[in-house]
């Protein structure tokens, strides 16, 4: 077998150009997903009422179906649905077919990540003892103050490793964004691979890039974790 190293070097440089897109999808998705995921976690914590049930069904459905299927479904539904809504229902002069397809990537991955994060937040909230809320109420804090100042800071620390996992998984899932014609790392390498049948080289490059990106993400989370969990680290000391 002949490995084309020159091609690999070129592909590496070219796929570097896709990194901003990959990171953009990951970051925007996280920003969109965190607030609704948090409120879903709170709703599910109550364990009763219609909100809790709806949230549970949503999480179960999203976690029970492959991401690729969610992408295919929404990408074949959303453009024409949005077009119909904008032009027919609201009579706006919008051409959704000219939109950057990255918008669909934001939507699809956010729907998915919201479900994942709501599970993460729920289990994190349940790790904070009930006594912490009682302690806060007994000194006169309101429920909202208790959440903001006592419960959430502790829940966040215990959630960080799982948030890191979710982020790594999200980053990996964005490799499927090429199905929505988004020009991320994988898409660029795929196109280049098809030129001269240099498949192995192209995908090996992508593989290395993902490992590097994942490493950076994990190091970042480690740093944040170390910073936030000062009160826990001292236990070991």
């Amino acid at each position, binding site marked *: 077998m002949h490995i084309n190293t020159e091609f690999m070097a070129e592909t590496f440089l070219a796929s570097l150009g896709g990194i901003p897109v990959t990171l953009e999808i990951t970051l925007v998705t996280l920003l969109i997903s965190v607030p609704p995921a948090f409120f879903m976690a709170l709703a599910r914590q109550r364990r009763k009422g219609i909100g809790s049930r709806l949230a549970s069904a949503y999480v179960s459905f999203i976690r029970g179906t492959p991401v690729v299927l969610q992408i295919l479904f929404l990408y074949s539904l959303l453009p024409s649905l949005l077009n119909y809504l904008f032009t027919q229902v609201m009579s706006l002069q919008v051409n959704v077919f000219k939109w950057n397809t990255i918008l669909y990537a934001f939507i699809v991955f956010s729907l998915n990540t919201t479900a994942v994060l709501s599970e993460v937040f729920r289990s994190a909230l349940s790790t904070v*003892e009930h*006594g*912490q809320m*009682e*302690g*806060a*109420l*007994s*000194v*006169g*804090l*309101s429920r909202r*103050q208790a959440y903001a*100042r*006592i419960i959430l*800071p*502790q829940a966040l*620390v215990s959630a960080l490793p799982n948030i890191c996992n979710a982020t790594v998984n999200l980053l990996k899932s964005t490799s499927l964004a090429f199905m929505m014609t988004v020009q991320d790392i994988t898409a660029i390498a795929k196109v280049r691979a098809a030129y001269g049948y240099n498949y192995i080289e192209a995908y090996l490059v992508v593989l290395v890039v993902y490992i590097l990106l994942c490493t950076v993400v994990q190091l970042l989370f480690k740093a944040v974790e170390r910073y936030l969990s000062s*009160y*826990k680290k*001292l*236990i070991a*000391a």
Partner: protein
Amino acid sequence: MLEVRNVHKSFGDNEILKGVDLKVEKGDIIVILGPSGSGKTTLLRCINFLERAEKGTMDFDDIHTEFKTASRHQINAIRKRTGFVFQNYNLFANKTALQNVTEGLTVARKVPKQEADARAKEALDRVGLSDRYDYYPSQLSGGQQQRVGIARAIAVNPEVILFDEPTSALDPELVGEVLNVMKALARDGATMIVVTHEMGFAQDVASRVVFMSEGTVVEQGAPKEIFRAPKDPRTAQFLRRILRDDYEYSI
């Protein structure tokens, strides 16, 4: 100053409080005794609205309220004028000892930070922790944590402090330091309601002992009367058992 009447509370089919009355005057040290399951802790938690009683009324100085219909505003007002010391401390794990005490001052009562720090340090000094301001709960022993819990409760100058079995989660050798702090508070004229199994504390410090059994107040009176000549057979039986256990424990 504080009076609750006819307090009822059930958990499911299990009726824990079956119409309890309790009256507390300023400077009283009320010790509530009784076998486990008698509703002592539940009564205390209802007074601070950590549990919602189904029936009964409460008069706290000028505040008159029904337990069932108390508004959020009233609950908050009552909580701000009371302190609560928990069995398992419930210190904020993400805050230092000092921050645990200032939290209720700065956030709930809008005391300026500098003044809050000064008051919190004074409270921690009173419980003998002047060298532990910046320690996190996880770095303190059980006895020290409970003393921070007491400092947190007294720093807000509460009109009454509620103690829910403050020493029962502690190792035996750490009980003394917490009881000493409570005795000192009593000497300084604090109003306290204490649920405990510490008979010595009840005998030495209480101005009135309340004996509860199966969700009702069976009898109450000065510690001397209760301990020497209990009127109700249930009180007598309970005291016999406890005092015998204490005796056996000491050999």
